[in-house]
């Protein structure tokens, strides 16, 4: 049905956001900061579900148009709890606008990463298509000035607006409510100076864009000896984002996860707590019953081989720089490809511009720091780094007759960023980042279980990248973003004298994406996604072998056939994708998309059509579903001659999902989703003599996920996630179905955080996961050639290890120190000291069996200072 009116959004609407969040108060009148917020800046609510109003029939007949200024109260869950027309305009417009606005759904306003209630003004424009509203050429700045600590309005404060060259252009005096307003401002970046009696001066910068109203709240300190400007509490442009287009996208809230027990303050460690994500002792990411190799972590738009440092202790990203952690467990967008499992998309935010900030975190495992702030009016920077110091003491913990640690284990990482915003239409960012892990040890004597494990044993993984990002808005409807990253990497493995892998190389990634709004109902997103890897490959050892369903893969190296390969080669994997976000009817969003990939290593083209849909049944209920095809290239070594099979084809998966999102009350959001995945052309170990691998495998994965998330408040947060699933594989046509090696029937996570008083944070996380399938050993054969017993296995994955259960606790206490804060924390992993089964061990002839348990109770202490 053609719509004869439209609600002017984005630049055409004046949006006034007045954040009502009440910060906790410290003794000195500064924000208490007991949660050690990631950032002090406040983010206004973002509209995620827009509802068209019914154009009043009489007004339409009379060709009347109107703009209704609404005042909307949005709670901390993002729901609209109250709407009123500020200045009624009559003719039925007020009622229609109010009715529609009551159905809006927002992402809640946030201070740092903590959701807070907010009140905003929203102008709902009723326009007839024949007379579209002219695009505005000016913007507005409106806000309030409050006394920090009490949040009392400061009347009589002088707010001065200065142009880029420092010339005062306008000034205003706050009224009794502390409010000020500048209208008809030319689009530009302005400096704001605030002077109030008995208050320290405050300086800030604001970007004014045409057609936008920048709404700010300034909290001004009482006079203090220094001239240090107070931190800007809030300054942001409220914009309306596009509605969600993913069937399932699980976004992690930074502050909520920094406080989560068991993560050691690293939100990325909480990925495995999300619905659909399995548990791996090696911190590999298992999404909806898929192999870890079937899923990908994208960092700033480019894949990274490894998200976590050695042992999964921590990620290589400074947590306080994180902007988003999005998990797509299935039916993901066409902009992602080459994988058939799931996607973890990690992004960094821009550096802060409201003054210089710093953070130091020292704990028993590693230390890290972050420094960020503005350079000039348009430039800002951030530098972060982390280094472990196991290497300083671990050799004292290792028995001397066992091993000598030569460089073990050490990791470090870094991120440095320059952000440049020359105009409201452009955003540029230059980054360098990298990660380094190294473990080397020299065994004092050969391992009894496998004499090939002798001498040196080690692994080194490192990558360094330079990345450039340019985002440009041509106009209100067209946006282009290009990301280019490139750099060297190295991956070395050394297992005694029998296995040596050295893979230095270079990699480069280019993503160029256009986003075009064709109409209010249709957006198009298209782009190029190009990956290139160059390897200087050197290998000596046994050929490739798939691990899943193959217990022999982890058996001794001794006696295995060895191959040798030295080669230099490049992998070019270009792709193009196109996706439409179409809203054919109120509440319904359809996202058809397709992606074409070329895989130079196996000389194959793939075409993956996908479709997802969301339908907002009521203001609190959304139905969603998706279907799509996903293709995956062989890994680097799988398609190599000698080592793998260059004639492999891409593996494929069909994803189907159907679910519902339900708001329950003001704080609870419940999501339930069923899924089914069909896999074919899965790469498996070949039974054909002379062939290492082939595509004979197929798979099926099905299950359901339920999550219940309590929207975080200043006091508490929590969530429950539960996954019931079954993942099966059939390696060859003449073999029976078997369980996938990481099949976990039940995955339950319950996490909660609670703030006691003003400065104590307590949190707990409990996890229960069904034990992984195990292939039992039913006998053994003595191999006189190697002097080792070779196990004889029963039915593949026909038994399970015992279930995993773990309780993690975290306590954090923080103190305000002048304008900064100091926090001390204890993160206790496995607080119940449960001996979880992580594997099985056997004596030399497999006649005795024992359980290998996971890590015992491990307390982690740390201190963090923040400015």
């Amino acid at each position, binding site marked *: 049905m053609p719509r004869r009116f439209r609600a002017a959004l984005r630049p055409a609407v004046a949006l006034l956001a007045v954040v009502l969040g009440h910060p906790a108060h410290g003794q000195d009148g500064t924000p208490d900061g007991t949660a050690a917020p990631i950032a002090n800046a406040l983010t206004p609510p973002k509209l995620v579900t827009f509802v068209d109003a019914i154009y009043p029939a009489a007004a339409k007949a009379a060709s009347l148009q109107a703009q209704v200024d609404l005042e909307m109260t949005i709670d901390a869950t993002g729901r609209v709890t109250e709407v009123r027309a500020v200045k009624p305009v009559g003719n039925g417009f007020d009622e229609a606008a109010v009715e529609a606005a009551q159905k809006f759904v927002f992402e809640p306003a946030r201070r740092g990463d903590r959701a807070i209630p907010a009140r905003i003004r929203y102008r709902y424009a009723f326009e007839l298509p024949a007379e579209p509203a002219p695009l505005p050429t000016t913007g507005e700045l409106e806000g309030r000035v409050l006394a920090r600590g009490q949040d009392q309005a400061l009347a009589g404060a002088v707010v001065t607006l200065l142009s880029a060259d420092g010339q005062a252009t306008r000034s205003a005096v706050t009224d009794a409510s502390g409010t000020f307003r500048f209208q008809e401002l030319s689009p530009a970046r302005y400096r704001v100076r605030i002077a109030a009696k008995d208050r320290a001066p405050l300086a800030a910068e604001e970007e004014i864009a045409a057609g936008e109203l920048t709404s700010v709240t300034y909290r001004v300190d009482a006079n203090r000896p220094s001239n240090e400007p107070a931190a800007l509490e809030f300054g942001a442009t409220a914009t309306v984002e596009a509605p969600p287009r993913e069937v399932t996208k699980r976004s992690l809230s930074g502050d909520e996860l920094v406080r989560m027990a068991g993560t050691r303050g690293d939100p990325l460690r909480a990925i495995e707590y999300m619905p659909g994500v399995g548990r791996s002792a090696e911190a590999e990411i298992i999404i909806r019953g898929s192999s870890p190799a079937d899923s990908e972590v994208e960092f700033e738009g480019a894949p990274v081989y490894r998200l976590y440092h050695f042992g999964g202790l921590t990620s290589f990203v400074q947590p306080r720089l994180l902007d988003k952690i999005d998990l797509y467990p299935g039916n993901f967008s066409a902009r992602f490809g080459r994988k058939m499992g799931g996607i973890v998309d990690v992004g960094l935010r821009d550096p802060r511009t409201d003054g210089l900030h710093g953070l130091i975190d020292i704990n028993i495992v590693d230390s890290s720091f972050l420094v960020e702030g503005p350079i000039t009016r348009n430039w800002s920077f951030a530098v972060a780094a982390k280094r472990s110091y196991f290497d300083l003491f671990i050799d004292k913990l290792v028995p001397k007759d066992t091993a000598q640690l030569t460089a073990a284990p050490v990791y470090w990482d870094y991120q440095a960023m320059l952000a440049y915003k020359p105009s409201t239409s452009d955003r540029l960012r230059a980054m360098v980042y990298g990660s380094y892990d190294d473990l080397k040890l020299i065994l004092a004597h050969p391992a009894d279980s496998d004499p090939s494990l002798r001498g040196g044993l080690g692994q080194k993984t490192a990558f360094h990248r330079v990345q450039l990002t340019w985002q440009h808005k041509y106009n209100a409807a067209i946006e282009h973003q290009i990301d280019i990253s490139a750099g060297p990497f190295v991956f070395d*493995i050394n297992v005694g004298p029998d296995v040596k892998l050295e893979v230095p190389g270079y990699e480069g990634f280019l993503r160029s994406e256009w986003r075009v709004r064709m109409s209010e109902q249709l957006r198009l997103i298209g782009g190029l996604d190009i990956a290139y890897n160059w390897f200087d490959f050197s290998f000596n050892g046994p050929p490739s072998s798939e691990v899943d369903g193959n217990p022999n893969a982890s058996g001794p190296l001794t006696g295995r056939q060895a191959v040798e390969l030295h080669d230099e080669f490049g992998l070019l994997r270009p792709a193009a994708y196109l996706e439409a976000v179409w809203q054919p009817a109120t509440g319904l969003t359809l996202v058809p998309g397709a992606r074409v990939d070329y895989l130079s290593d196996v000389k194959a083209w793939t075409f993956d059509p996908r479709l997802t849909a969301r339908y907002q049944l009521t203001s609190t209920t959304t139905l969603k579903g998706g279907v799509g095809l996903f293709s995956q290239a062989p890994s680097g070594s799988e398609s190599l001659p000698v080592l793998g099979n260059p004639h492999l084809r891409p593996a494929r998966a069909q994803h189907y999902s159907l679910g519902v999102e339900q708001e329950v009350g003001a704080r609870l959001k419940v999501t339930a989703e069923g899924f089914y995945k069909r896999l074919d052309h899965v790469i498996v170990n070949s039974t054909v003599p002379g062939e290492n691998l082939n595509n004979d495998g197929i798979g099926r994965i099905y299950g359901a996920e339920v999550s219940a998330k309590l929207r975080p408040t200043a006091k508490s947060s929590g969530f429950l996630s539960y996954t019931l699933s079954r993942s099966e594989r059939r390696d060859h046509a003449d073999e029976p179905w078997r369980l996938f090696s990481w099949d976990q029937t039940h995955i339950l996570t319950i996490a909660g955080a609670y703030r006691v008083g003003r400065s104590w944070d307590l949190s707990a996380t409990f996890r229960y996961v069904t034990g992984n399938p195990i292939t039992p050993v039913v006998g053994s054969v003595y191999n006189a050639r190697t002097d080792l017993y070779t196990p004889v296995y029963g039915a593949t994955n026909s038994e399970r290890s015992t279930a995993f259960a773990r309780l993690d606790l975290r306590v954090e206490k923080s103190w305000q120190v002048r304008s900064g804060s100091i926090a001390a924390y204890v993160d206790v992993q496995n607080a119940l000291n449960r001996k979880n089964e992580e594997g099985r061990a056997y004596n030399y002839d497999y006649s005795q069996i024992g359980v290998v348990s996971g890590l015992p109770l491990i307390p982690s202490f740390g201190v963090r200072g923040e400015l």
Partner: protein
Amino acid sequence: MTNTIKNTLLLGLSGFLFIAGCGPTFDPASLITNTRVVGARIEVDGAPDRASPVPGETVNVTWLVTSPDVTPPLGWTFAVCAPGTGTSSTACLAAPLARFDGTATPPRISILVPSGAVLGGATSLTLGGAICAGVDSMPQFDSQTGLANCSNGGRSTAVVLDIPLQQGDEANHNPIADRAFTFDGLAWAAPTAADDPCVQGPRVTAGSNNHVIGNTTDGSDREPYTVVTGDPPAVTTTRESLQISQFTTAGKLNSQFSFVEATDDNATTTVEVTWDAPEAAEAAAAGAAVTFTFVVRDDRGGADWTSRSLCVTP
């Protein structure tokens, strides 16, 4: 990345953690607590130093079985399997090239290597079977699993040996295990059958630790040979390494294995292993004899063994 490698590395690291205290504790593999098979030696009939037969030759295979005390009577069954048939599988046992049953100690069989036409280009033969310990105890194979139990109810030891066939004129010779041994720096001679170590051998005090056993190997035991490897395939010359397995009937060796690597250019190389004597409770007043067995293997199927003994006194 190769999944196998990654997994193996994780296994190695896991093993490292086990050592650090996260895994179960078993008796070390180097401690002989029951009757065990610890090696097999291939000798071409008429040229016992050669371990690489050619088609038409007869090869003698001797199995080394050791025990904490006197080795009990044995019963055994072996089958020479057609190339690619498998090892202890029912298929091999159902249609072997040859089958051997016996009770001799040590087990010793003679195999006539089939002609090239029968072998079909195979580069090795597979010898599989099972050994049982005890009087009148013979292996009885399960037709479904191919695994064997002993007729006396005991647990059999399933065994397999790959017998490489000689390619061209590149023969492989068995290494020599008994070059020179030392115990705590003193020469340590091989016992004779009648020797009582508590009369003639070295004597150590129960509970004493870190006794050093030195085993000198000769560079001639590590023969050069050629392999075809790489892409495109290329012939390269390499050299054998020596894997030395060491066992004891009491006390604790710090490792079951020692190695002389292929890259070792020395004319002679001495490997050392340390041994902790058993506690006093295990030593009788008159002393307790402890036997050490050393089995040396090259990379290509050659093997040899020797033994030493000493006396532990309270």
